[in-house]
C-alpha cells in the first residue's frame, strides 16, 4: 500500500491516476481548489477501494502555505511515498499577450508554484532517501509556439527543473518522473475539437502510473509524441517561424 499525495486532484489526468491507486487500495491525500468537486472525487475514490482519502483545499498560488500543506499530508498519512503534481491552467494565449499580469499569473500557476513545491518535496525525500516525484509537464514545453508559448514557457521551466532535480536526487534513491502529455480530452480542453491525436485521460493515467511504478525519467504520453516532438524540435527556426501551428 502506497501513500500518495496528489496536488491538483481536480485535474482529469490526476483523477484517473487516483482511480488506479484507489483500486489498488492505496492511501490518498488530495489537494485541490474546489471543495465541492473534490468531495465528489473523494467519495468516488472511497467506493473504488482507496484505504483512506483526505482532502485539503488550498490555492497553490499561496506559496507561503506550501510547507504547511506538506506537513499536513505527511501527518495525515504518516509519510508520503509518491507525489503527483498535476495542477495547472491552460492559458489563454491571446489575453496573455495583452496583459503582463495575466502572463505572469500563468507562469506563476504553471511553473513557479510547482518549483516551490518541488524544492520543498525534494529536500524531504532526499533526507529520507526514498520516494517518487511525478510532475505533469507538457509537450508544449519542448518548443514554444505562437499559439501557446506562455503555457509552453512555463512547462519548459518545469521540464528543465525536473531534469536537474532528477540528476541531483538520483544518488539519494529518489525518482523524478516527468510526464509530457500531448492532447488529452479533459474539461481543460473541452473547447477544442478532438481529432486523431487526442487521448483519453484514463489511458494517459494508466501510462503515468506505470511510469511511476517503473521509476521512468521522461515519458511522452501517448508515446508517438516523442517522435512528433523530435521532428518539431529539429525544424530550423528559419522555417519554424513561418509555420502556422
Amino acid at each position: 500500500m502506497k501513500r500518495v499525495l496528489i496536488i491538483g486532484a481536480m485535474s482529469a489526468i490526476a483523477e484517473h491516476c487516483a482511480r488506479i491507486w484507489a483500486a489498488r487500495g492505496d492511501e490518498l491525500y488530495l489537494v485541490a481548489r474546489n471543495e465541492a468537486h473534490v468531495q465528489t472525487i473523494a467519495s468516488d475514490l472511497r467506493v473504488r477501494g482507496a484505504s483512506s482519502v483526505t482532502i485539503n483545499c488550498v490555492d497553490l498560488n499561496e506559496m507561503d502555505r506550501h510547507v504547511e500543506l506538506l506537513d499536513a499530508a505527511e501527518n495525515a498519512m504518516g509519510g508520503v511515498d509518491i507525489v503527483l503534481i498535476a495542477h495547472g491552467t491552460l492559458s489563454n494565449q491571446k489575453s496573455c499577450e495583452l496583459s503582463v499580469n495575466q502572463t505572469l499569473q500563468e507562469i506563476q500557476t504553471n511553473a513557479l508554484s510547482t518549483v516551490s513545491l518541488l524544492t520543498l518535496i525534494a529536500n524531504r525525500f532526499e533526507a529520507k532517501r526514498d520516494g517518487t516525484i511525478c510532475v505533469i509537464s507538457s509537450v508544449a514545453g519542448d518548443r514554444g509556439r505562437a499559439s501557446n508559448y506562455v503555457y509552453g514557457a512555463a512547462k519548459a521551466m518545469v521540464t528543465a527543473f525536473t531534469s536537474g532535480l532528477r540528476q541531483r536526487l538520483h544518488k539519494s534513491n529518489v525518482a523524478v518522473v516527468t510526464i509530457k502529455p500531448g492532447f488529452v480530452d479533459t474539461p481543460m480542453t473541452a473547447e477544442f475539437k478532438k481529432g486523431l491525436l487526442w487521448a483519453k485521460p484514463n489511458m494517459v493515467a494508466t501510462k503515468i502510473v506505470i511510469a511511476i511504478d517503473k521509476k521512468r525519467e521522461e515519458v511522452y504520453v501517448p508515446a508517438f509524441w516523442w517522435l512528433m516532438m523530435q521532428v518539431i524540435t529539429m525544424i530550423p527556426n528559419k522555417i519554424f517561424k513561418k509555420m502556422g501551428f
Partner: protein
Amino acid sequence: MTFTTTISGWGNYPQQEAQLLTPSSCAALHAVIKREGSVIARGMGRSYGDSANAPKVLQTSHCDHFVEFDEKTGRLTAEAGIILREILKVIVHRGWFLPVTPGTSYVTFGGAIASDVHGKNHHISGTFGQHVKSIRMVLGTGEVVTTSEDENPDLFHATCGGMGLTGVIISATIQLLPIRSSLINQKTIKADCIEAACEAFEDNSSTTYSVAWIDCLAKGKSLGRSVLMLGEHAESGGFKIDIKDPVSIPFNTPSALLSSLTMKTFNGAYWHKANHNHTQTVPLMPYFYPLDAIGNWNKLYGKSGFLQFQCVIPKDDGIENMRKLLTEIAESGEGSFLAVLKEFGKANINLLSFPTEGYTLALDFKVTTSAIITLHRLEDMVVGMGGRVYLTKDAVMQEATFKATYPKWEEFESVRDKYGAIGKFSSAQSKRLGLA
C-alpha cells in the same frame, strides 16, 4: 466547453452534425441545461440509431463518479455517466453483480436507465429500471428533483425507458444482485427449428439466464434453428474478474467481409460448432459481454453503417409469427451476422419500456435502401402481430408504427409537459417519431 462534430449511434447511421456540450461536472450540468435550448443527453453513444443524436448533445463523460456503495446491502449510488464496466470493476470482487445487464458493458448507467435495458434474465428479473430505487435528475426548468416509485412516480415511470426525453439523469441508486462466485455455469442446447427453440425456452423458464443465437439464413425445415445458451451464477469459484481493454478494429472494414456468403458460413459454423447439452463453467465477462472483446465491432459493417432491428411479438401465435418474420428475413437475403432470440417475461408499467411478454428477435442489417424497405416491411408485420420495435435499436421506425405500438405515448407526453421537458429535451429519434 463546446465544439461541433459529427456524431452517430453505434450503427454509424444516421450521422449528424452536432454541437457537443461537455459539462465538467454534475454541478455544471444544470447551468448548461438552463442556458441551452433543446438538448439530449448522450453517454457512450451505444444506442444503435438516432436516439442520442440532436443538433446539441449534452455529453455526460465527466459525470462518472461513484457516490456511495454499501457492501452489506448492495445499494449502489453513482452518477449517470459512469459506464457499467467501471461498476463491475468495483462490485464483482465484493460479491455483487448488476441485477440486469445488457449485452455490452460499454453503456452508461444513465443510458441503461433511459433505455430501460433488459438482459438474458428478463423472464425472471424484468428490466434494469425495475431495480433502480431512485433517480436524481435535472428537469427542463433547471430544477433538480428526486424521483422513485414513491416520489414523483409519474416522472420515474416516464424516465425509466424514456430515452432521455424527460430530463437529464444526474445520479441514481440501484439494488445490486448478490453472487457467490464470478463464474457462470453455462449449458448449451441445440434446437433444430423455431418450434424446438421456443419449446426449449419454455422448458428452461426457471433458469436465470437464457438466450439463443438463431441462424436467420436457414430456410425450410431448419428455419429458426438455434443454439440456446442457459446460465446460472456458480455457487463457488471465487470472485476473480478480468476486465481488459478491448482489441480495436482501427478502421472501417470493406463491407464485402459481411457478404451473405460469409454470413451464411459464419452462422452455419456457429451452429455446427455448438455441442448439444454441453455444460461448462465460464467467466462472467465473456459470458455476458462476448462482443466487448472487440472494441468496435460496429466498424465491421463498413462506412455506411448498419441498422439493428429488434422486435417483440406476443406469445399467442408467437411461433407462427416468428416463422413469418424469419421467412421474410431469409428471403430478403440481408439478414445478419448476429441474430438473437429470447423469451421475455411480463411487461413493466414504465411508459415507453420495450419488453412485453413474448418472443424477441434482434438482428443487424447493413444500411442499404433495400434494407430500410425490408425493415419497414418487418415493422408493418410486427404491428399486425401486436408487437413493437425497440427504441434503443431503432433508426428508421415510422411515426405511425411508434404511436400504434407504444399506446402510452400520450401519457408520456403529458408527463413531459408537466415536468417542463417539452422544448428542452428532444432527439432526432423523438422528432422522427412525432414527439413534441
